Every structure is written in structure tokens, then in C-alpha cells.
């Protein structure tokens, strides 16, 4: 028997290859030369920029490559850009934090890059195996990153909880994939859909398999009721890692859910739209209500990120091309505003995360007016107040759901955004109208953080005022509907 090597397009996975190469380079630099240790963050940022260049190179014809294991389409590319932006911003806000907290090691940056590669494989996977490998590559790196400040007990604990619940979720995901493979005899998403339309016996098992897979992804997305790990892990992990975990992996989980549901699970569309709607309602409501009572800002942002996952799920449940492009646009905006908010928190909380409660923000307007203004912009955007990007993102999500006929769902979502505004404004009140009894010194932002915040502010306004062109890109990125 002859073996035919399948057609392989390395250009489709160029961003991944660049990140892997840079990650390995950083590991080796770290162990072989002491004098580069200050530059590791910049080398990683350089790698991300190069990868971003390759990810933005337009592709002519969407296709699958690597024998159908990987789809090189615009959907993948758009999500790759989101992940790379998230990673780049995380690296920029990490730079000062890592030096202050004595975690400026090569493997910190390498792990972030490798986790990004995992996310890209989740978005680009056209096969259950690729998607599973992507999920695991991302998760394993994140387990380590969550516990990276290993002298801090909270960080240890976050890491352990994340690891146990993450591995538990992976077990469900794998079992669901196994069931679907067993019934259809296929692991490629498109062929699964084909096999099901040709022969629809054993529907029950397929539905169970799809349900288990959604449970697995919902854990990674931190959707209620699979969210219990989120607040603890986000609170315990180092702040830049929390910023990273709450943006990229969420987008990656959404990408994988969209791909699996739309490409392979069309046959039970009626079922999954209902499941996703229920998940969305619970996720928004629980996230927002729990965030109201938090006094630790890291924990508050954790619940806020849960509720944002809920809004994104509203777009998924629309199950139209508008809904998908709205979700993609939402994740793009969310990445900017979320990481920027965490970046400011990392600065305000000072070395070793002395103070992450809302009190740390008291009187920030007096000590650092510019920083206070940036934080205000980000919080307004998170709350969804025009003209920031967060408003347009929510608007398109709700529009797509209304057009798909989910009026009740949108009503719940709108009520939730109103509740959500309250806790963001609580922080803004602390910034402008409350005195800090300790009279702290003004905090100093390093050049990389300033750059990250500048980019985020510009992006939040540009996306808010001129969302059309980005939506068009996202719209063109669509999966075959």
C-alpha cells in the first residue's frame, strides 16, 4: 500500500509556527544567557507582531488543509487576530508586573505563547482531534500560568482548582467526542454532518454526545452552571494571567462552540438553540447579580467576564450569520476593554497584589487623572455605554437575536446590562468621589503599559464609532451557513 502525503499548506498555520518558534527561542535564551532576561517580554511581543502580520495576510480561497484537519478560512483568521491582540496586550501589561513580582522567567512568556497556539487550533480545528488538542494545549498552559506566583497561597489554590475542574471538563468533552465518532465513524466536522444527514439512527446517542461536548466547552467558557471555578481562579491567578484567561480562552471556546455547532450539529439545531439560550440566560443573570456584591475588584471583573460570556452566547443562539459576526465583533471589543481594565488594576494593586479591593481605586482621580480617565472609558465600555465599542458590540448581538426571533432572550439581556452598569459605576464613583485615607503616592506606568492602554483606548473608540468595516470583515469571515 502506498502512502500519499496529503497536501499541506504551511502558510495556513504560519502564525502558529511563528509563535512556537519564538516560544522555543525564549525558553532557550532563558537557560543559556542571563543577559537577555530583561528583553524576553519584548521578544515575545515581537513574535506576536510577526504572527499578527501573517494572520492578517488575506487568503484567497477558504479551504481545509492537513488532510482536512485544519480549516484555513476567514473565520479562523479573524479569531487568530483576536487571540494575538489579547496575547500582545497581555505581554505588554505583564512586563512591569513580571519584574516586580519576580516572575520574569522565560517560561512565563513561552507558556503564554503556547497557550495562544492552542487557542488558534481550537478556532481553526476542522476535526475533533485538532479541536481537542487545541483545548488541551491551551488549558495545560493556563493551569501552570494560574499558579505561576507559586509563593502566593491564593495562586496555588487557583491553579489547583482550575486544574481539577478543567481536567474534569476535558473528560466530558472527550467522552462526547467519542460518542459522536462512534455513531458517525467520522472525526471531521463536515463529514460528521454528512454522515448524520445520510443516516439518522441513534439520534439519542448523538444528542447526548453533542450535549457532553457543549458541557465541556461551557466549562472553558465559564458559562453558568459550569462557572464555579471562575471567580476563585480569576481572583487567585496573577493579574496579567487573569486578564489573559478572561479574554483569549473565552473567545477560543466560543470559536470552537460555533464551529462544532454550525458545521457539525446542524441536525439538532432546534435542540442546541434552546440549550444555548438557557445557558445564556443563566450566565448573564448569575454573573451580573453575583458581581453586584463583590468588594474585590478582581472577583468583580471575574463575574463581569461571566456575564459577558452570557451576552456572547445570546449571539450564538441567534444561529444566523449576523449572530456569528456579532459574536466575533463582541469578542474583539471585549478583548481590548477587558485586558486594559486588568492592566490598570495590575498597576493600582501594586507589587505582590497588596490591594485588589475597590478601595485601591479610591481617589485615583486625584493621584493619576489620566489613568482614572482611561479606567473610566474601559468601565463605560464594559457597561455598554455609547459611544464606546462595548455598546456597539452589545447592540449588534441584541439586533441579531431580535432578527432571529428571540425577543424574550433579548429582554433578559437588556435588563442584565442595566444591572451590570451599576457595579461598573460603583468603581467609577470610588475613582472620582471618594477619598483614600492612606493618601497614596501616584503610581507610575511603564512605557509598555502606556502603549497597551493607548492602543486599547483608540481601539475602543474606533470600534464604537466605526464598527461597520470590522463587522463587514467579521461577516465575510463566516462559516458556510
Amino acid at each position, binding site marked *: 500500500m502506498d502512502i500519499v502525503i496529503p497536501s499541506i499548506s504551511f502558510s495556513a498555520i504560519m502564525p502558529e509556527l511563528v509563535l512556537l518558534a519564538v516560544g522555543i527561542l525564549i525558553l532557550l535564551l532563558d537557560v543559556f544567557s542571563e543577559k537577555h532576561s530583561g528583553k524576553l517580554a519584548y521578544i515575545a511581543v515581537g513574535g506576536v507582531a510577526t504572527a499578527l502580520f501573517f494572520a492578517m495576510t488575506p487568503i484567497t480561497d477558504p479551504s481545509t488543509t492537513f488532510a482536512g484537519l485544519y480549516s484555513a478560512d476567514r473565520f479562523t483568521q479573524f479569531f487568530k487576530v483576536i487571540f494575538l491582540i489579547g496575547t500582545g496586550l497581555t505581554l505588554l501589561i505583564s512586563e512591569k508586573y513580571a519584574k516586580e513580582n519576580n516572575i520574569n522567567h522565560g517560561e512565563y512568556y513561552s507558556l503564554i505563547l503556547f497557550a495562544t497556539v492552542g487557542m488558534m487550533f481550537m478556532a481553526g480545528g476542522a476535526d475533533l482531534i485538532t479541536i481537542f488538542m487545541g483545548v488541551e494545549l491551551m488549558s495545560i498552559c493556563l493551569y501552570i500560568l494560574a499558579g505561576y506566583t507559586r509563593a502566593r*497561597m*491564593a495562586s*496555588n489554590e487557583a*491553579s489547583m482548582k482550575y486544574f481539577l475542574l478543567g*481536567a474534569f471538563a476535558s*473528560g466530558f468533552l472527550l*467522552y462526547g467526542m467519542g460518542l459522536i465518532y*462512534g455513531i458517525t465513524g467520522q472525526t471531521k466536522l463536515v463529514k460528521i454532518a454528512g454522515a448524520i444527514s445520510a443516516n439518522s439512527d441513534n439520534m439519542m446517542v448523538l444528542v447526548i454526545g453533542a450535549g457532553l461536548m457543549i458541557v465541556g466547552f461551557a466549562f472553558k467558557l465559564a458559562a453558568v452552571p459550569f462557572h464555579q471555578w471562575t471567580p476563585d481562579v480569576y481572583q487567585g491567578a496573577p493579574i496579567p494571567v487573569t486578564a489573559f484567561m478572561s479574554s483569549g480562552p473565552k473567545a477560543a471556546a466560543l470559536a470552537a462552540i460555533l464551529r462544532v455547532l454550525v458545521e457539525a450539529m446542524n441536525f439538532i439545531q432546534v435542540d442546541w438553540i434552546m440549550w444555548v439560550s438557557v445557558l445564556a440566560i443563566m450566565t448573564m443573570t448569575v454573573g451580573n447579580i453575583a458581581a453586584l456584591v463583590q468588594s474585590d475588584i478582581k472577583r468583580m471583573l471575574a463575574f463581569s467576564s461571566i456575564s459577558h460570556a452570557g451576552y456572547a452566547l445570546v449571539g450564538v443562539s441567534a444561529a444566523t450569520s449576523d449572530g456569528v459576526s456579532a459574536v466575533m465583533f463582541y469578542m474583539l471589543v471585549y478583548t481590548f476593554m477587558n485586558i486594559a481594565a486588568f492592566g490598570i488594576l495590575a498597576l493600582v494593586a501594586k507589587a505582590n497584589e497588596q490591594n485588589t479591593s475597590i478601595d485601591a481605586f479610591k481617589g485615583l482621580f486625584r493621584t493619576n487623572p489620566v489613568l482614572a480617565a482611561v479606567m473610566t472609558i474601559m468601565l463605560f465600555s464594559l457597561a455598554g455605554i455609547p459611544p464606546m465599542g462595548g455598546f456597539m458590540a452589545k447592540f449588534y448581538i441584541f439586533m441579531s437575536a431580535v432578527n432571529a426571533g428571540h425577543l424574550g432572550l433579548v429582554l433578559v439581556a437588556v435588563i442584565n446590562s442595566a444591572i451590570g452598569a451599576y457595579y461598573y459605576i460603583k468603581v467609577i464613583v470610588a475613582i472620582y468621589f471618594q477619598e483614600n485615607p492612606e493618601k497614596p503616592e501616584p503610581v507610575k506606568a511603564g512605557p509598555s503599559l502606556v502603549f497597551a492602554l493607548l492602543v486599547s483606548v483608540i481601539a475602543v473608540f474606533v470600534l464604537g464609532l466605526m464598527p461597520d468595516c470590522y463587522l463587514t470583515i467579521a461577516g465575510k469571515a463566516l462559516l458556510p451557513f
Partner: protein
Amino acid sequence: MAELTLNHYLILSGVLFSIGVIGVLTRRNVIVVYMCIELMFNAANLMIIAFSNSLGDMTGHVFVFMVMAVAAAEAAVGLAIIIALYRNKKTVDVDEVNLLKG
């Protein structure tokens, strides 16, 4: 003697998976919880291999190879995390690890 069919393997895998899930939910020792998670993975592996064999399709074998490699990496990372926790806290009981609450 009855022949072993696909169903036997599927039932075994289902039972192992359930034991794993129940173990994760009821046990308090981190190491035991992790062993139960490994049991879930291996139940899934067993099922995929059984399907792969009955379908006569090698993809399942490849899938299981990948899962095994991933599970090994996960085990190494997990044990390292548990050791780091134990060094700081001197316990591996899930209930005693409760610094973060809210």
C-alpha cells in the same frame, strides 16, 4: 461462552466513566480526585478504541494516541501543581483548600 461485542465494551466504558464522575464529586483527596479524572479519560479512550475497532477505521487509534500523550502531560502538570500546593499548605484535602471564597 458468549462473544464479546461492541456493547460489552461500551457498557464497561460507561461504567468506568460514571465511577470517575462520582469519584470526582465525592472524594476529597486531590490525588484521588485526579485519579478519577484519569479514569474518565481512559473510559473515553476505551470507548473510542472499541468504536474504532468495530468500524474498522484507524482514526480512532490516532485519536487515542493523542489523548494518551495529552493525559501524560496533564498528569505531570497536575502532580506538580499538587506538590506546590502541598509544600505551601501541608494538605491535599480539597475542603481545606478554601482561601478564596466570596
